[in-house]
């Protein structure tokens, strides 16, 4: 299980970080493949197969392949390409929504009640920030430049904070499992 959370953590880290030198040095599609393997491993703890979640992860891995080549300049040059990051964000939010179903099941299996509270807390904050940001972004494309810039900065900052919080949560979950732990 520790290894499963480790794959989730590294996978989401790949998706979060973008080092673009000609291509993205931490490709998103590699991240989603790692997330898929992590989910596959963690799903063994539950009676459900989480097929929807796995399929969604594969879809995201495929859809995020162009992101390997695209940088901000190329995206800005094409009007329709500027909506591609929004599509990726939307699919990722849906993925995380379903992922938390699995994470709650695992949190309930652990002896610490605080784990379930922490899981729910990070879930609600993650959804609030990301869904709120997706909603706001739809309006700022028609907003004056100064409002667009201010709101964009706010969205980026909140987005960064919640993504880091989510990564910290995954890392903490990983640490809750010792290397030899067996959970029935």
């Amino acid at each position, binding site marked *: 299980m520790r290894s499963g959370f480790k794959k989730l953590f590294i996978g989401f880290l790949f998706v979060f970080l973008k080092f673009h030198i000609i291509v993205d040095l931490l490709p998103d599609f590699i991240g989603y493949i790692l997330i898929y393997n992590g989910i596959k491993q963690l799903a063994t703890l539950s009676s459900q197969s989480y097929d929807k979640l796995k399929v969604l992860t594969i879809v995201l891995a495929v859809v995020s392949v162009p992101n390997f080549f695209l940088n901000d*300049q190329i995206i*800005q*040059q094409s*009007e329709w390409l*500027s*909506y591609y990051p*929004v599509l990726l964000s*939307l699919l990722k939010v*849906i993925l995380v*929504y379903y992922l938390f179903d699995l994470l709650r099941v695992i949190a309930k299996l652990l002896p610490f009640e605080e784990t379930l509270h922490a899981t729910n807390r990070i879930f609600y904050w993650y*959804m609030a920030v990301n*869904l709120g940001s*997706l*909603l706001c972004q*739809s*309006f700022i*494309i*028609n*907003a*004056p*430049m100064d409002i667009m*810039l201010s709101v964009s900065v706010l969205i980026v900052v909140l987005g960064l904070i919640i993504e880091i919080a989510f990564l910290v949560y995954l890392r903490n979950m990983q640490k809750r499992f010792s290397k030899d732990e067996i959970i029935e």
Partner: protein
Amino acid sequence: MKNWFWRIISVILLCWTVNIFYYQSKQLEEPIVLDTYIDMPSSEQTSFKLFYLTNKNDVIELDSLQINGYTYSNENSWFPWFGELSAQAYRQEFSHHFLKEASFTLTEEDLGNVNEGVQTNNIFAHFTNGQIIPVKVDKLALTPIAEEVSIFSSPSSFSTNNHGEAVLLKVEEPVSMNPIELPDLVQQHKDLKVMVWKDSKGVSTAFSELANTSWDQLDAPLYTEVTWPLQIEPVDSVALFFHTKESLNEIKFISALQPWTGKTLDGKVVSHDIYIKNEPWLTQKQVNALLEKARGEAK
């Protein structure tokens, strides 16, 4: 729990769809260069401007102007670093567009080419994205200044916030001035009121107050209502108040010098050049009207 999530996703998708449609409906397929009327004196280096609208999210600048086959570069062409949208130079910002300004300077040799006979339907604007757009120019005349005898001085002039300009004039000797004639194309866009003070005491203050009054409340006769010829004495002051008519159908940049002629008591012909300009300061409604006109012509 799943219900609320999918409802929110539906709302997000709906908002995106509506906003994208609205955004697309406001996009220009190509920049719009405002109609232009230029009738100015030339010198060793003669400058004039053009104004144009572009989409905010397209980093496009007017690169050069082609007149009768000759090409002149825009001195105001400012391409922002890395094509950064927010670093564009503009005159006015609107919801989805920028109003930008292009400036051209012609040397005497260039003027020779231009004044060979400008075919006003043979002027094209070249943009940095490769688009070439015909520019509607009602007049482009840059002619050498004729020797004029002027007995006028201009103690002060104003540009006001409500789309107006004003100039205060005094004469050195008694003069009888002919009616001011504005070209038809200028009359469509500019109004002119004339005020004469028979005593110059306190005129500066009175002039400033009138210049800052709204056009409708400015208590001076229109130039067409003045009794011509206008007799002006050295103790008198004459103020000319210009106002740009706010029109949704015709938006034009005007830069022109209009001679105002008259005679002194001893029969000497005098002339004073009145500078008429209309650098555009548009409202969102005017931009919307330009957009609709552009789309209507494209259909």
